[in-house]
């Protein structure tokens, strides 16, 4: 055996791993493939025959039926609007906080840091009841604000992550800026932020995908059918039609709600994987 070729057992092991992973990957995406197939199958044919891998008589009529019964394009716009604003809000809160925790010395730093980061471990359902009462009391029920504002403060992971990113920057850049008389704000905005743009991009994608999929809270505070997001609209859709669920249009709407996050994920896949790694180096 020379150094170039790998031993046979190793090749067999690799092949076996490929086979196992391929089977598991296919099994994992199967429910979604089936959703896509159903979305393009005429509604009358969906319940007729369960086993099919490709739509018979492919059609987009399900989208038309869904759009006729529900304001799905409005839902799409609402999803885009609320997800963008939630993401923006998270960045506005978490970036400066991460910077201060990572690069500034001040009394109470560790306490405040853990106060913020500990919220990573709060099940979100716990805060729902008092928050709901507050939303009703300030008469914000069924507004975009009620959907957006209480969703922003879940920033534990973001602050933790940005602290790591700012910490890993070279101190000499900040020294030089200080020599030039840059104040703390300019050091943050002109030196630190431009150097963590990959981190900002990765967390924006993660936040956007998370906000897009907010379900329980949205279902609770959004009642007006024109204010719903796609993911909450789908639930209304299924309930509204009761026993006679129109599976085709439902699948079409589900597909519509998946597509933006799917595209975003495929574009940013590498980014997201890298983004999740460095934050874990220390406790």
């Amino acid at each position, binding site marked *: 055996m020379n150094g170039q070729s790998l031993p046979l057992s190793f090749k067999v092991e690799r092949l076996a791993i490929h086979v196992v992973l391929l089977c598991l990957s296919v099994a994992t995406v199967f429910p979604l493939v089936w959703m896509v197939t159903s979305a393009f199958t005429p509604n009358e044919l969906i319940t007729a025959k369960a086993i099919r891998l490709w739509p018979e008589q492919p059609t987009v009529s399900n989208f038309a039926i869904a759009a006729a019964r529900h304001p799905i394009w409005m839902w799409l716009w609402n999803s885009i609007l609320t997800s963008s604003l939630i993401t923006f809000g998270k960045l506005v809160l978490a970036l400066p906080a991460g910077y201060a925790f990572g690069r500034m010395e001040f009394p109470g730093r560790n306490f405040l840091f853990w106060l913020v980061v500990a919220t990573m471990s709060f099940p979100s359902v716990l805060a729902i009841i008092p928050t709901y009462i507050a939303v009703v009391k300030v008469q914000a029920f069924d507004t975009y604000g009620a959907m957006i504002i209480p969703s922003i403060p879940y920033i534990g992971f973001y602050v933790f992550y940005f602290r790591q990113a700012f910490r890993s920057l070279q101190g000499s850049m900040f020294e030089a800026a200080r020599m030039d008389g840059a104040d703390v704000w300019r050091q943050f905005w002109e030196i630190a932020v431009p150097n963590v743009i990959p981190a900002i991009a990765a967390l924006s994608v993660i936040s956007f995908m998370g906000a897009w999929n907010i379900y329980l809270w949205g279902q609770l505070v959004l009642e007006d059918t024109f204010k719903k997001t796609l993911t909450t609209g789908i639930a209304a859709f299924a309930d509204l039609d009761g026993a006679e669920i129109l599976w085709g249009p439902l699948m079409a709407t589900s597909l519509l709600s998946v597509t933006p996050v799917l595209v975003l994920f495929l574009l940013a896949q590498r980014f997201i994987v890298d983004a999740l790694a460095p934050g*874990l180096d220390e406790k």
Partner: protein
Amino acid sequence: MNRPNFRRTTRLLAPYLFVGPAVLAVLIFLYGPIAGSAALSLLDWNLLSSDINFVGAANYAAMFSNADFQLSAWNTLAYCAILIPAQIVIPLVLAVMLHSVSGSRMGTVYRGMLFLPTILAFSVAGVAWSWLLNPVNGLFNEVLTAFGLPRSRWHTDPDLALLCVSLITFWKTFGLNMLLWLAALANVPHSLREASRLDGASRWQYFRDIELPMITPTAFFISVTTLFHILDDIVGVIDVLTHGGPAGRSSSILYFLWQQGMQFFQFGQASAVAMIIIVVVLSVTWMQFRIGEKRVHYG
């Protein structure tokens, strides 16, 4: 105003201006509601009525003697017994396999496919699965029939509902832990694998003696966060698939809270449940930190 003094003051204040909004946001929107729950748990009140009565521990007493609460508490233990080991071990095995093919194009494809369910909304996952599991004409039953097996009622069968919810919760969420494990494995220097192979170590020995000790910080992180994620995620799946049924057999303690609060408007009852959950979660976390500190290797 005295210029140097002003600059000194801004420098001292600056950090608080930077962290202030974030700290205020979590205090108001996350710690605030928990303090609110603590207060509500001692009151008899629903949003519709104007009278609020102080009832002390009555909500807690009522909760513990509530049969639905007891059932959902047992169910939650069952969910944890199934999902915690599954959510830790299976993603690790997948990550080890993915890591060993990480150079190849197919490696990226597998990773993307396996992670896909994680990016879905619970409502979408629920729609996809309720269609597959549909007792009347769902695909799973068609397959069973094709093999001459009896049909199943899946999530509408009292004995299978909890397992169905577990399976779907697992499907929907294992991707995150898988990516975290994968990231940790990617940080293990590649030279160590070469060295151990030259020393004649098996794949298993390499994993046990080199990789595993080096990924303990991630193991610690995952072990702490998995519990909360599971508790939270099950609620989403239950809400779209079973609504806790049939007869409460798939309900969990957080879903019980959700129903008491948001369907029956029993805020006092629901808040008492919230307090119990907080106490349990904090104790478990505290224990994990105590155990974790002794075991974790920081490189």
